[in-house]
């Protein structure tokens, strides 16, 4: 091997290594770092309180578990460019200015900035939704107490008789529902980087415990290491799905994202049918392998699919989409969980299409309908 060839190989290797280093983020689901990032012993430092206050928050008093803030206190940024707390490493889900740090204008679940611009754009965790008094598609379950999750997000639940549920408000009406306080999840060790999270011991996927599949269940999936601050066909979350045969209710779907959503929005897909002609847009239905659907072959983070249990979960996110392998449409194929720039938390401007000239995510699956 000549020295010139050797030099070339070394340079290529260095560039390749650089590529890996620059594109591979490090993130811990288990909170790491000095305890004082999140906790305060006396809520006082040189006479000042130690609370992280989100805009509008005024409670500077001590918090349970010696925490230095509410959920929003830690997960809010007062600009539009911060996507991760520089102190705690917490993902920012609420920017007080329009998020501009990526094209999606938010992390994978969206950004609560948008629900403050219009109630229809997100789950309103701040105040009473001006459009809705109950979760649309609610199955009408009773026994969830006053101000339950199906009714609103901004008020605290009471009267359930379940100490883990009473007092839940805002974010905790979806995250860590059955846990008293956040500790049980923030300190779970589910590894580092992009990884598969599928048990309570690991804190479930994004701390989503419960719901439609009941106690002992949660959401399983691959957590992208930067919450999709960057994203591509190979850089994204993965969600567990499960196609139910013999009719559609979602109670028995297991640890799927759809099962979680349908805890409040079950009617959206109730009796949707088992095959075309569908009565409602199917969810957790394996993509057809023929016709226009067969053209969706490369994973588009704009329109994620759910993966079956047979997916190579430990192998990380896949860039491939295939009905043959059991990939499914699901709730998050169309919606973002927190809020989006678009009506009904859509992942694209569905309402404005086609006049807007923008991309219609429907066409990612319905490839002949654009």
């Amino acid at each position: 091997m000549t020295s010139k060839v050797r030099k070339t190989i070394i340079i290529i290797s260095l560039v390749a290594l650089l590529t890996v280093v620059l594109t591979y983020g490090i993130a811990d689901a288990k909170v790491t770092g000095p305890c004082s990032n999140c906790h305060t012993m006396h809520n006082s430092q040189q006479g000042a309180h130690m609370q992280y206050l989100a805009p509008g928050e005024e409670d500077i008093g001590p918090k349970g578990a010696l925490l230095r803030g509410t959920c929003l206190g830690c997960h809010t940024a007062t600009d539009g460019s911060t996507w991760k707390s520089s102190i705690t490493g917490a993902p920012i889900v609420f920017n007080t200015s329009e998020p501009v740090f990526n094209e999606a204008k938010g992390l994978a679940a969206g950004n609560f900035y948008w629900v403050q611009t219009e109630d229809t754009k997100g789950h309103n965790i701040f105040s009473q939704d001006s459009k809705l008094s109950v979760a649309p598609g609610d199955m009408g379950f009773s026994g969830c107490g006053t101000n339950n999750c199906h009714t609103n997000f901004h008020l605290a639940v009471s009267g359930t008789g379940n100490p883990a549920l009473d007092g839940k408000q805002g974010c905790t009406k979806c995250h860590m529902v059955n846990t008293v306080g956040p500790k049980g999840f923030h300190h779970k060790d589910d590894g580092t980087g992009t990884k598969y999270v599928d048990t309570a011991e690991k804190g479930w996927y994004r701390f989503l415990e419960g719901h439609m599949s009941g106690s002992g269940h949660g959401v399983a999936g691959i957590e992208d290491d930067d919450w999709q601050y960057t994203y591509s066909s190979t850089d994204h979350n993965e969600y567990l799905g499960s196609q139910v045969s013999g009719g559609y209710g979602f109670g028995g779907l297991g640890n799927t994202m759809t099962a979680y959503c349908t805890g409040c929005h079950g009617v959206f897909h109730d009796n949707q049918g088992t095959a075309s002609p569908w009565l409602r847009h199917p969810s957790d239905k394996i993509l057809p392998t023929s016709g226009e659907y067969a053209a969706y072959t490369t994973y588009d983070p704009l329109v994620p699919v759910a993966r079956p249990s047979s997916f190579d979960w430990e192998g990380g996110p896949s860039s491939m989409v295939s009905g043959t392998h059991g990939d499914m449409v699901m709730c998050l194929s169309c919606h973002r969980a927190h809020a989006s720039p678009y009506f009904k938390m859509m992942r694209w401007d569905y309402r404005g299409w086609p006049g807007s000239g923008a991309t219609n995510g429907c066409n990612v699956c319905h490839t002949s309908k654009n």
Partner: protein
Amino acid sequence: MRRNIILISILLCGMVLCWILYPDRASSGPYLDSAHGNTSYGVKRSATGFPADYAKGNCAHCHEQHASIGGAEPDPAGGPDKFLLMSPNFSGKTVIPYIQSDSVCFYCHYGSGTLQSPAFNNYSYSITFGGNPDATPNNIFNTFNSTSYHNLYDVYRFIAGLSGSKSFPNFPADSNPCSGCHNVHIAKKSCGKPAGSYDPTKSAISRPTGHDSLWGDDDIERLKTNFTSYYQSPYWYGSWNYEPNNSPVYDGSNLPDYNTFCTDCHNNTNIIYSTALGRYLRAIDWVTPGGETGGDKHGKNDATNGIDIDNPYASSPLGISVGFVLACTDCHEPHGAPNVMLIRQVVNGGVLYRTISSVTPTAGDCTPPFPAGSKELGYLCNRCHMDDADAFGGTANKWCYIHHESTDRPYPLNQCGFCHSGGDGGGGGGESMSCETVSRNPINCNCCHFHGSDDNAAPDGRRTNRRTF
């Protein structure tokens, strides 16, 4: 060294591209080019409970993903419905009168009360592509509620494979009958209304055998291509120009090949039941030449000797005098018509002299000697064929010349009594006669003239066994 710099640059560029490239979006499809997806005149539902700010052409105007919007179902309520449609696809109504809820399509393709905003008109074929100055019917719903109509129940059962037999795969069991001829996601607005808007490269129809593509929008799907040199366009109403757009184009090069389109169903092998008629439809062989053993003469089969016809056929710029092939739509409406058998109100540049309310012979009408029968069908025939008025200034819709004096006449003039009843001016005895003087009871046209007919009804010894349609 320079080589390494180039190499590094290429690799870095590739790396940057990897970072900035997003996954491929779906490739372009035809919906936005369709009439329903058009951003200017596409679907736009205006109904109680439906948000006003959904863009024109948006899926939600027809499809409700969750059978609701904001937790409630907008009008028309009552869902969820199959295919996520805003209403049931088709009610299964067997005969007219249809009501709006009988087909999801009628919610918009309707007169006053349409959910489409703004309201719009769809005229009959005669009006749109024939120049009929009449302004009614001005919507598809009313057109279907006409004297004759393309029975939606029969269409549905046929395309879904629930009735008859056919040569194309079954449509899904819950199909809308309109989808037999239209693919709503790709159908375009070819249109002739308002005048000047016709665009032959657009088409609203898809063959049942080719539901996923339009038919007639490409040159190879036009009548001229498939019936080379034998299709003469009929006149546009009140004009020396031609259908379908009042232009000098006379050869069907601007007209979808409706013959190929219609004969996907209406051919000589498919079995199609008609609820309205209470019988199976006649087989139609539009493509077989061969004289008296071939198919219909209005199709690819030829006249026996010659034909006595009006313009534009009599002096056709095609340079032929026989062998014309007509398009199905030259005589028939696709949706509904004020005449029986979907016969158009305007044919070859003029309105039919009278409404054709019945052509079906009653019992005994076709048994020689024939009793006086209806010749209403003649109001259609004489739009192109020479009746006695055309031949020698005789009576309109009287057909003595063609049958008895023309060089192509099948029957002698002086043997009236074998077939005709009544009348005066001689007959039956061989005396000298002429059509100008003879008068006999007419024979129901339909005894001898219908798709697939010959003159089998004629009495023994007078039968020619000619193809008579």
